[in-house]
C-alpha cells in the first residue's frame, strides 16, 4: 500500500490538469500550440522538435480530495478522515491521468503559404470515477445498510495507450481568418473500457416466507468490460515480456483508428481575436486481440440449504457449496466476447477570445509603414479561454482567464487563472524563450499549490525544446 502511495505521489509531483493545456493554448511562439489548435497563426517558417524532448506532458488529478486531506499531519485519526472523505465524495468525482511524450514534431511553410506540420506522439489516458457505493460497502460492510441498495453502475473507467501519427495543414486564408486541420492515425496498443454499467446489490431482511434471515440480491446487473490488446498479454509471464510486446506494437502493431483536429483563428478587429478548435474527433476500430466480458442477471443468495439425504456412514453428501457457485454462475453468467468494437476518442473543444494592447512589437516602436495592418502585434494581451472534454459521465469543462506579455524580444510569458472541476484557484504560468533558433518553453499550473503539492488536487509541468526557423 505504501509503495502504491509513493508511485501515486510521484505521479502528482510532475503532473498537469487532465489534458487541458491552458497555458500553451494560443501561445503561438510554441510550435506545439498547433496541436491544440491547428488553425492558429504560425509565425515561424519552419520548426522541428528535438526528438523525445519537444514535449513531455504528464498529469494526474483528483476531484474532491487531495493527498493532504488524507495524509496531512493531523490530530484526527486517518481512518476518520478517510471515512469522512468517502461520504463527502460523489460518484461523479474522478481520478484521471494523462501522459504524453512527443517523439517527433516538425513543420514548414510551403511556397503556397500553407504551413504543414506533422509528427508522432505517444499518449496514455486513464480515468476512473469514484464508485461511492462500493467504497462505502468495502469500508463499512452491509450491517448498517440492510434494505439500502448499493449502486453497482457507479463503476466507470477507461484506459488507453496509443501512438498517434498526425499531419496537418494551416493557412491564413484571408487577412482575418486562419484555418487549419490535422489528420490523425491512432495505433492503439492497449485499451479497456467499462462504462454504462447497471445493477444494484441489496441485503433485505427476510419476511415470513423467506428461506433464511436475509435475502442478498444482485438486481438487474448488466456490467461489461471491453478490452483490446489485453488477451494476448494475459498469458505472458514477467513484466519484461509484456513491455517488449507493447513496444513492439508501438508502430502499427495495434488496432488502428482515424481522427481529425480542426481549428480556426479569426481577427474580429485589430485588437480582438477569437479562436476555436475541436480535437480528436475520431474513432478507433478494435478488431484485433479483442476480449469483452459481460456479466448480467439477477440473483438472490439465501445461503446453503441442507437436505439431509438418507446416506450411510462415510458416504458423501451433496456438494452444496459447489452447487451454489454453479447456480450463481448460471444466474449471472459472464460472457466472453471476441467481437470487435468501435471506440470514440474523447473529443476536446477549445475556444478563446483575446484583446491585445500595449506597445507594438516587431517594429522597434518606430514607423511601421511597410506593415499594412495585417500583422500588427502588441506586447500584451488578455483573454478568456474555454476547454471541454467528453468523458464517460458527461462533459468536463474549464474556464481560463489569461494575461500574456512579451517581456523582451526573446522572452514571452503567459499567466492563467483557471476554474475547473478540480479547483477554482488554479494559477498557471508559462515562459517561452527564443534564443536564436532554439525555442524553449516551460508551463506549469496550480502554482499556488507548489509550496505544498500535497494540498493540490492537480498540478502540471510541461516543457520542451524545439528548433525554430523564423521568417526572414
Amino acid at each position, binding site marked *: 500500500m505504501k509503495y502504491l502511495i509513493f508511485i501515486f505521489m510521484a505521479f502528482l509531483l510532475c503532473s498537469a490538469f487532465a489534458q487541458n493545456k491552458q497555458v500553451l493554448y494560443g501561445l503561438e511562439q510554441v510550435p506545439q500550440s498547433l496541436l491544440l489548435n491547428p488553425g492558429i497563426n504560425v509565425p515561424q517558417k519552419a520548426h522541428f522538435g528535438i526528438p523525445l524532448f519537444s514535449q513531455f506532458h504528464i498529469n494526474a488529478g483528483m476531484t474532491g480530495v487531495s493527498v493532504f486531506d488524507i495524509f*496531512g499531519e493531523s490530530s484526527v485519526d486517518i481512518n476518520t478522515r478517510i471515512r469522512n472523505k468517502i461520504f463527502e465524495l460523489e460518484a461523479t468525482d474522478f481520478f484521471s491521468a494523462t501522459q504524453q511524450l512527443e517523439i517527433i514534431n516538425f513543420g514548414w511553410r510551403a511556397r503556397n503559404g500553407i504551413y504543414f506540420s506533422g509528427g508522432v506522439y505517444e499518449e496514455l489516458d486513464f480515468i476512473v470515477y469514484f464508485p461511492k457505493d462500493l467504497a462505502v460497502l468495502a469500508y463499512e460492510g*452491509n450491517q448498517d445498510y440492510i434494505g439500502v441498495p448499493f449502486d453497482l453502475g457507479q463503476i466507470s473507467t477507461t484506459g488507453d495507450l496509443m501512438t498517434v501519427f498526425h499531419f496537418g495543414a494551416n493557412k491564413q486564408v484571408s487577412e482575418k481568418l486562419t484555418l487549419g486541420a490535422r489528420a490523425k492515425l491512432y495505433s492503439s496498443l492497449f485499451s479497456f473500457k467499462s462504462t454504462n454499467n447497471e445493477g444494484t446489490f441489496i441485503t433485505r431482511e427476510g419476511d415470513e416466507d423467506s428461506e*433464511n434471515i436475509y435475502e442478498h440480491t444482485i438486481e438487474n446487473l448488466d456490467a461489461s468490460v471491453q478490452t483490446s490488446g489485453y488477451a494476448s498479454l494475459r498469458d505472458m509471464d514477467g513484466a519484461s515480456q509484456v513491455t517488449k510486446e507493447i513496444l513492439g506494437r508501438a508502430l502499427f502493431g495495434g488496432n488502428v483508428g482515424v481522427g481529425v483536429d480542426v481549428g480556426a483563428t479569426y481577427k474580429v478587429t485589430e485588437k480582438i481575436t477569437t479562436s476555436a478548435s475541436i480535437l480528436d474527433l475520431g474513432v478507433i476500430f478494435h478488431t484485433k486481440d479483442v476480449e469483452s466480458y459481460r456479466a448480467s442477471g439477477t440473483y438472490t443468495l439465501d445461503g*446453503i440449504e441442507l437436505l439431509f439425504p438418507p446416506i450411510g456412514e462415510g458416504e458423501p453428501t451433496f456438494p452444496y457449496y459447489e452447487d451454489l457457485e454453479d447456480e450463481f454462475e448460471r444466474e449471472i453468467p459472464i460472457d466472453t466476447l471476441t467481437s470487435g468494437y468501435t471506440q470514440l476518442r474523447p473529443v476536446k473543444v477549445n475556444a478563446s477570445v483575446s484583446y491585445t494592447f500595449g506597445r507594438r512589437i516587431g517594429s522597434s516602436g518606430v514607423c511601421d509603414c511597410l506593415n499594412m495592418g495585417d500583422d500588427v502585434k502588441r506586447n500584451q494581451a488578455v483573454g478568456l479561454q474555454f476547454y471541454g472534454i467528453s468523458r464517460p459521465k458527461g462533459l468536463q469543462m474549464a474556464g481560463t482567464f489569461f494575461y500574456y506579455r512579451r517581456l523582451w524580444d526573446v522572452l514571452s510569458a503567459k499567466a492563467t487563472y483557471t476554474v475547473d472541476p478540480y479547483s477554482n484557484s488554479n494559477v498557471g504560468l508559462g515562459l517561452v524563450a527564443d534564443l536564436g533558433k532554439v525555442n524553449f518553453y516551460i508551463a506549469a499550473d496550480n502554482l499556488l499549490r*507548489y509550496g505544498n503539492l500535497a494540498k493540490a488536487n492537480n498540478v502540471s509541468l510541461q516543457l520542451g525544446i524545439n528548433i525554430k526557423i523564423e521568417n526572414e
Partner: protein
Amino acid sequence: MKNNLLVPFLGILSFIFIASSCVKDTDFDQAQDIVLTPVVELNLIHFDLEAEDFYDEVAMTERLTVQDSTQIRFLDDSGFQESLVRAEFFFRFKNSIPRDFDVAFQFLDSLQQQTYFTGTSVNQGSAGNEVVTEFTQNVEGEDLLLLTTSDRVVVSVTIPTSGPNLEGNLKLQSKATYFFEIKEQEE
C-alpha cells in the same frame, strides 16, 4: 548580453519550479494505520426437516440422529483468516414437532479433524404452534483461530424418541456477522 543572462535565468527558474515543489506536513507512515473495519451480515445455512425424516419407514426403525454437512470454503481462506477479528453466529429454529432437539455444529478442517464445536438444544413445539428458539454464538480470540482453520460444517440433529406418527417441522435459519479489521500486513 541579454541572451547570456537569459539561459541561466531560465535554468534557475526551471529548477525552482521543480525543486520548490514539495510535499509538506504529511506523514505517509500513517498508511500503516489505515484499517478498514467492515461488518458483514451474511446468510449461513438453512433447512426444513420434517418429522418423518426421523423415522425409517422401510426398516420401521427410529432414526434418532440425522446429519448433513457442507463445505464453507471461504472460512479457511488466508485473507479471511488474517482479517477476521470476531464472528457472531445466529441460529433461529422454528419447531412444530412435539420433541426437544439437540443440534450440534461441528467444524472440520480439510483432514476431517474437528477444530471447533458448538451446539444448542431446541424447545419442543406442537402441531400448528411453531416454537422459536434462538441461539447466538460469539467466536473470537483462540476459538476464532480454530474456527478459521476449518472449511466444513457438520450439522447433527438429534431427537430423543421418534415414531411413524410424529408430525411437524423443524426449520433452521442462520446467519453470521463477520467483523473485519483489514490493514497492511506485516512483511
